[in-house]
């Protein structure tokens, strides 16, 4: 077997299969973060503003832990974006002359729009950090010396444009996960005729639940359930 020479040190990084593995592994990390983030956010429904504020304090209790988590997430996001960009370039080169007519059989809206939902979600994440972590969009509410998360969230989501962007980003996140959550298994080689259809249903359900969970917060603020 000597059809082509393989340089093993650089080979893995160059193949599309490996890039998809990077997408999948970083995707799992970001998905795990989303679950934790939503679980924390839902404390806002406890009826006691101190609950979510205590949770925020707990997250900030140990700066080394906090920054480790932030760096892991940042690296995952960067790798996810780099791999996506490289794959997108590959795809653009793969079909220099397009079709006059092309049907889309077998794929779905979510799978075809990954390259659009992704960057919009990334922009939203930047906005979201500026808004509720840095307080650059709406001034953060303070409770003594500590930031008051509960009232900062309410102040923010009373601005209709902020709520609208949040809801739009979460709808796109739902689409992104609808495809990504099962696709990551396929990319690392997990597929089974019996379990993959179940996995797809699980992915769709989970994407929907996660999006509903996040969207419920600005909606609750706007209709006055949380005040």
């Amino acid at each position, binding site marked *: *077997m000597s*059809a*082509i020479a*393989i340089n*093993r040190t650089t*080979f*893995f990084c*160059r*193949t*599309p*299969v*490996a*890039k*998809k*593995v990077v997408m999948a592994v970083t995707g799992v990390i970001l998905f795990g973060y989303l679950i934790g983030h939503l679980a924390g956010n839902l404390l806002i429904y406890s009826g006691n503003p101190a609950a979510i504020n205590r949770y925020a304090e707990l997250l900030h209790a140990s700066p080394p832990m906090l920054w480790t988590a932030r760096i892991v997430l940042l690296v995952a996001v960067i790798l996810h974006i780099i791999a996506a960009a490289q*794959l997108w370039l*590959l*795809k653009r*080169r*793969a*079909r*220099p*002359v*397009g*079709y*006059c*007519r*092309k*049907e*889309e*059989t*077998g*794929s*779905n809206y979510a*799978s*075809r729009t*990954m390259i659009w939902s992704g960057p919009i979600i990334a922009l939203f994440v930047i906005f979201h950090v500026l808004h509720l972590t840095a307080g650059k969009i709406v001034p953060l509410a303070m409770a003594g010396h500590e930031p008051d998360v509960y009232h900062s969230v309410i102040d923010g989501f009373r601005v209709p444009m902020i709520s609208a962007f949040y809801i739009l980003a979460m709808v796109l996140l739902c689409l992104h996960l609808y*495809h990504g959550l*099962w*696709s990551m*298994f*396929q*990319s*690392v*080689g*997990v*597929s*089974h*005729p019996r379990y*993959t259809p179940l996995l797809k249903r699980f992915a769709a359900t989970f994407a929907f639940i996660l999006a509903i969970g996040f969207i419920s917060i600005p909606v609750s603020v706007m209709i006055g359930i949380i005040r």
Partner: protein
Amino acid sequence: MKLTLHIWRQANSTAPGRMVKYEVDDVSEHMSFLEMLDVLNEKLTLKGEDPIAFDSDCREGICGTCGFMVNGVAHGPLPKTTVCQLHMRHFKDGDVLYLEPWRTRAFPVIKDLAVDRSALDRIVAAGGFVSIDTGAAPDANAIPVPKERAEISMDAAACIGCGACAAMCPNGSASLFTGAKITHLGVLPQGQPERNERALRMVAQATEEGLSYCSNHGECEAVCPKGITLEVIARMNRHYIKAEWVDRGQPAE
């Protein structure tokens, strides 16, 4: 029945191509799609025009030579059917059809609807084989093959290498083809000694050919005339990833 065809005409691989409109009368519902084109070509020849070039060989759906896009779907609207086995009874009078060649960088157009698919041959040559000693044939039952393994292998071996997967893929990836070839030998006991090399080399060759990546849309399995499923792509990924972990490659010279 009467059909209006818009067909991609391109004199050779370097000439610019364009869609040309043809009217075909008296199409019989019993004709196959290729026979309908044969009738059109007869008329074009009689008029002194250049007939439409398209590939075909067995015309019974098992050789993988034919194939082009019909209204934006590889091999046309009927699932699990090559275009030679697609009969005109599936169309109706007055239909307007757009015929285009497979389009990916790896399959340059030779002429009209005929494309060069030797990229697929090179992928097979890179690792889609089992090395055996020549001589007397081995005893038929010397190597037991579990039934389930044999079924997985045979399902993958149904791939006729037509290239519809790469043509239909929104990314221009032939992963369904490469996955089928890797699965076909990689699940059998005879394929084990070269399993890692096979996965590494075939994936590398597909990359070399400019066939891009699988993002699990599933358009390939929707049009595969042999009903090969995305499971072979997961298996390709699995074999490839495992090979990357366990195979230390060729020793340094």
